[in-house]
């Protein structure tokens, strides 16, 4: 147990004795996890500053089993936490006053692929990347591409409204989800939306996407496939300072260019990924921009020239173009696995997910640098610069309680700087438990009331992923404060 984290089961009452028996009757005893050692796996997701294992993990094998499990829990009024692959970055799967975790990771079937209509129906546990692999021979792809796409699941993507580097041009998860099957906290199953693009009534699918598991459990999703671009130009622009790279980002957007992706990596990140992947990245650079243009081959060269010119005007000392698919793949490997590579630099890291208007990228980068200096922390930057979606990676050692305290303070200050610049505290990771404290800075009491009322439409008893997203006076007293104190 690290000093910076604390397990807790505050706010929970013991599970009813017969619950295990009734759940075993639904999923089989081997699909229940309740030994303390085995439960450790589930004590956190990708956000590791707070931990707490559930009392019981259920691993259903089908959407129908999920519904049956939820019905058993509903009968006893037991709260639950949905979880996919556990790659979330905001503590969305941390059990807080919810003793049972329901994992959808075994729901791995791609149920239908309709190439003519460009639709896929996938169960919640299908890994994001599997879908593109299934359809790429037909020249199609599933556009949202979070960096964890080799592990994260569609259910988690829907819950968090996940993004990724290429969402700059192609949009985030919500732009590609046409329908969901939702198991309500009562165990009732509702089909919302579907393969047809529009239907009368409220856009409930649009509400469910990004609701962080607080409306119930999504067990199936109907997804839109997109045509794979015919050609790519992937450029790596090298700058002496991160400031110059940030200004170039604004310059590219201002020139009316919408690249498929526009990503920033600073020196600290470059050094980490170069050590891991040997891509020949310049170790003395202040920052690089990874700019990807895609579309019909005929239009790419003029655009690439424009990007090159903007970068040169902002002081790029070199603009390298990926010569072939292999080099493109290597550059993207560096970008998408940057988080993992950072593991070489420090025992622990955490990341933030704020957003600023794209023209304020230089301002927020300066604010992050100043924050790092003020708190004596090492912070690397690898982020979706074209969207203004920052990912400062704060390095630390969780055994150093004082440093953990500075990490938390720096995170709060960076998010508040994003709000002050007219932005948001999360672009794609979600609020989870991590950013609850910032919600009242972003939304008025009326805004938050409207959201909690909508939550009650789907989950009037508050049993689906309770105590997430919204500040909750009761939980502040019972759970949050002790956890934070332990962390500080």
């Amino acid at each position: 147990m690290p000093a910076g984290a604390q397990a807790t089961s505050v706010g929970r009452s013991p599970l009813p004795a017969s619950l295990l028996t009734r759940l075993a009757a639904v999923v089989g005893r081997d699909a229940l996890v309740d030994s303390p050692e085995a439960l450790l796996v589930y004590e956190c997701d990708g956000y590791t500053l707070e931990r707490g294992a559930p009392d019981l993990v259920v691993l259903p094998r089908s959407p129908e089993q999920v519904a049956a499990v939820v019905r058993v829990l509903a009968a006893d009024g037991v709260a639950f936490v949905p979880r996919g692959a556990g790659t979330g970055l905001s503590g969305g799967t941390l059990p807080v006053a919810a003793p049972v975790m329901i994992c959808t990771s075994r729901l791995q079937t791609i149920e239908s692929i309709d190439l003519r209509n460009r639709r896929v129906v996938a169960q919640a546990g299908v890994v994001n990347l599997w879908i593109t692999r299934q359809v790429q021979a037909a020249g199609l792809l599933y556009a949202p591409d979070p960096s964890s796409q080799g592990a994260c699941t569609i259910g988690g993507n829907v819950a968090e409204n996940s993004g990724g580097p290429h969402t700059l041009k192609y949009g985030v998860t919500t732009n590609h989800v046409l329908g969901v099957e939702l198991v309500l906290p009562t165990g009732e199953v509702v089909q919302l939306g579907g393969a047809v693009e529009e239907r009368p009534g409220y856009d409930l699918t649009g509400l469910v996407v990004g609701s962080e598991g607080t409306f119930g459990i999504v067990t199936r999703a109907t997804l839109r496939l997109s045509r794979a671009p015919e050609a790519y130009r992937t450029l790596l622009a090298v700058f002496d300072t991160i400031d110059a790279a940030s200004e170039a980002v604004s310059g590219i957007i201002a020139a009316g260019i919408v690249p498929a992706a526009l990503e920033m990596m600073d020196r600290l990140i470059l050094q980490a990924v170069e050590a891991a992947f040997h891509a020949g990245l310049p170790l003395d650079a202040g920052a690089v921009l990874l700019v990807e243009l895609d579309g019909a081959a005929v239009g790419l060269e003029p655009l690439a020239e424009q990007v090159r010119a903007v970068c040169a005007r902002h002081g790029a000392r070199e603009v390298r173009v990926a010569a072939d698919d292999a080099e493109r793949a290597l550059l993207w490997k560096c970008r998408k696995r940057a988080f993992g590579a950072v593991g070489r630099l420090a025992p622990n890291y955490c990341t933030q997910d704020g957003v600023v208007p794209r023209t304020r990228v230089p301002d927020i980068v300066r604010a992050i640098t100043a924050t790092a200096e003020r708190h004596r922390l090492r912070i690397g930057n690898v982020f979706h610069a074209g969207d203004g979606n920052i990912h400062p990676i704060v390095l630390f050692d969780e055994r150093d309680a004082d440093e953990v305290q500075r990490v938390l303070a720096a995170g709060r200050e960076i998010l508040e700087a994003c709000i002050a610049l007219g932005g948001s505290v999360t672009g794609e990771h979600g609020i989870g438990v991590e950013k609850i404290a910032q919600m009242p800075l972003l939304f008025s009491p009326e805004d938050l009331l409207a959201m909690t009322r909508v939550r009650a439409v789907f989950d009037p008893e508050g049993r689906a992923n309770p105590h997430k997203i919204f500040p909750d006076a009761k939980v502040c007293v019972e759970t949050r404060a002790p956890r934070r104190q332990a962390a500080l």
Partner: protein
Amino acid sequence: MSDRGAAPHAHDLERAGTNADAVDGVVPARVVQGRSVDDVRAIVRRATDDGHALIASGRGRHLALGEPPGRLDLLLRLDRLDRVHEHQAADMTVNVATGCTLGEIDRVLARAGQWLPLDPPAPDETTVGGLIAANLSGPLRASQGTVRDLLLGLSWIGPGGELVSAGGRVVKNVAGYDLAKAHVGALGTLGVLVEATFKVRPRPPCERALVLGCDDPRTALDVALAARDAVDPAWLEIASAGVLAGVDAPFAVVVGWLGLAAEVTDAEQRVLDAVESSAARTLASVDGAPARALRARLGGFALEPAAAMLRAATLPGALGELLAEVARAAADAGTPLRCVAHAANGVARIAVADPAAVTTLVAALRPRLAARGGSLVVERAAPAVKHALQPVGGVFGDPGAGRALMRRLKEAFDPGASFAPGRFVAGI
């Protein structure tokens, strides 16, 4: 917020309703013009306190959509909230008051070489509030998406006069629930929309369109989808005979592209290659203003005179069958039907000339569409025609399994049923 009992009328225009203000034949008792957001808050609060039902309206151009209102005490005009608050060209976002027209936004964005790529008909008579509430779109949805894909943030007035906001002004944001989505296509039943932020895009330098002629609907669909697969077009429409002047074919497939000159030329050539061996005939190729005019003509079909305009939604691949069914139904009913379809989206509009044929057609087509997961909405019809639709599911038909959740959602936003009661699905 203006309290009750403060200055008697913060708004400057209030009058009795007339026949010209009628919504589906229902004349509002009063028409009030909101002059500012605070003004609208006070008007809404007073109306709900008095138990009045209200419908918000911009320029009234798209009010034909919906069930005839159950009650209508107040028509709240918002067309004076017409400002483009902020266009941050370098951020590619625009923040506007909902009474602002799409035409005005287009003029502002054009100065920076940008556009909001939503192209419903009559942009100078279409306000942002109407765009969102009626979920309006046009041919560009094939490549640019619809309101839900471009709306970043939204503010509305709730029944107590409270200002509520969701989303924000940045292009990527998952903080809190995406409540803006609930208002898209909700016909104002969840609140009075007052302010919106959209993401915008660079305005493409060139536009080109190719018109292909086909003899039957299934060929037309195959040709359209072959064009889609050759190179994703910016827009892709199928029009039946008589929609496009000078087109001598039972069905026209119109493929549009946007981009650099070299891109649109290349795209057109690829589509010509892809359909070379098909039964399609090349009828015309147009560039620039004529291409834009052709797109506007196809989008404008939604508003052209008809006894009723039906909107059918199905899978793109089922459009050929739908268009064939429509042709058969027209023959059975002995009335001409004209159609325009957004082929890449599976959405078709059917103009019905004979009011007596509407109910029969809806009764015939709706179950067949529903069986394939689709729907049929009567977008526009005279009040008497709408009332006659009740036995066949009304204007919207059954909204499906989400029905109960939709009623609860309405209850959560508008417990007193003040906002456009009876206008929406399932009695909402």
